């Protein structure tokens, strides 16, 4: 089977598991919303919250993503399915792309909820002129995060203490996405008088990041899960 067909098969399987288990809906989304509320309690200042809303949205996304990635690989390792996929000769590049696609879909839902939370809780405003930039930012950042999450999730899947190892490995690597996505979202929101044009150079960084980890992950995933 082609890598692309395997990717679609794996993505459909992961999304069906989510549909049946509803872990994202019942656990991750409430967790993310709770993080946003806690930020509001901690900062307790409307002006400050409006100013830092883009950064808080992306921080909450990354914390929640850790849970999503761990869940994504827990279903593979619970009964030896990852080993079974290897023995079945399923192309590792297809597994990587499929799990990335499913993770990206779940992240997209999460980000919409977090964006709405920022608008409601922090009075963040999205100008129509920044809408295209905002959508592009979310697409590019989500793609990059899904690739990194899948790559590091696969790396940590067979390791002892993977629950604590994953954040240690992954959070430093996604720092460029946090910075780039926050700056681009600030430009889209018009935070501190920023204009949309200031956000587009950051999109370049996000796209480069996604391309690097997408290519590297597709090529290296087989060796990573084989070890």
């Amino acid at each position, binding site marked *: 089977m082609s890598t692309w067909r395997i990717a679609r098969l794996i993505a459909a399987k992961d999304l069906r598991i989510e549909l049946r288990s509803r872990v994202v809906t019942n656990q991750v989304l409430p967790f993310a919303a709770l993080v946003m509320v806690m930020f509001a309690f901690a900062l307790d200042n409307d002006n400050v919250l409006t100013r830092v809303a883009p950064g808080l949205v992306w921080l909450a996304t990354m914390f929640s993503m850790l849970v999503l990635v761990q869940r994504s690989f827990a279903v593979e390792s*619970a*009964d030896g*399915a990852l080993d*079974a996929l*290897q023995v*079945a*000769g399923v192309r590792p590049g297809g597994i990587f792309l499929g799990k990335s696609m499913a993770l990206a879909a779940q992240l997209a839902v999460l980000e919409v909820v977090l964006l709405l939370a920022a608008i409601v809780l922090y009075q963040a405003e999205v100008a129509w002129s920044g809408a295209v930039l905002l959508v592009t930012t979310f697409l590019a950042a989500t793609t990059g995060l899904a690739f990194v999450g899948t790559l590091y999730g696969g790396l940590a899947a067979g390791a002892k203490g993977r629950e604590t190892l994953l954040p240690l490995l992954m959070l430093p690597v996604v720092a460029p996405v946090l910075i780039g996505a926050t700056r681009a979202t600030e430009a889209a929101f018009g935070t501190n008088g920023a204009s949309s044009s200031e956000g587009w150079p950051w999109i370049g960084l996000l796209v480069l990041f996604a391309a690097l980890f997408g290519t590297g992950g597709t090529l290296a995933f087989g060796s990573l899960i084989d070890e």
Partner: protein
Amino acid sequence: MEPVVQLSGVVAVLGGFPVLAGADLTVARGEILLLRGPNGAGKTSLLRLCAGLLPVERGTAIVLGHDIAADRTAARHRVGLLGHSNGLYADLSVADNVAFWGATVGATRDEVAASLDRMGLSGRLAKVPVARLSAGQRRRTALACLVARRAELWLLDEPHAGLDAAGRDDLDATLREAAAAGATVMVASHELERAGALAHRVVDIVGGQVRE
């Protein structure tokens, strides 16, 4: 008969410990081979090596015509391994699991339905999530997944474990059918009476070596 597995002087190491110490073995197409031996003798390691999960440290290992000492992934798509774990997704139904594993080799809906039927899993049971099944029913589901995958080399580690009498009979009949159709079956088992009656040949694994 054409050999499907040819091992010569194979050494494999796991965690610094030699689990196979110069194993020699030839298995022909269509043969059902029973591997017997005490715990820790190397039965599971031999199956995992043939599946390409354990690297060959020294020696020659040809599986389905591929030199797995050079590339241990080469024969994987034609091999089916049922180890101590079942490789199932607990949140998916029995039918979803079998359909997924069948789809990895392009199995049709009819083939998936036949696999479920073969292991007595059609009907209401097919819609039950794996998480709600008994250990024996999970084992049956894993076997149905192997049937759907149409593997040429079946590597089974304690396949009868957890199965009830009907499940054991279904398994034995399935393995005999698969072998008659040209598949090769290697079974590691402590259930010597049942597995011995099923096998065409029996070998002992002692200290990481094969004794005919």
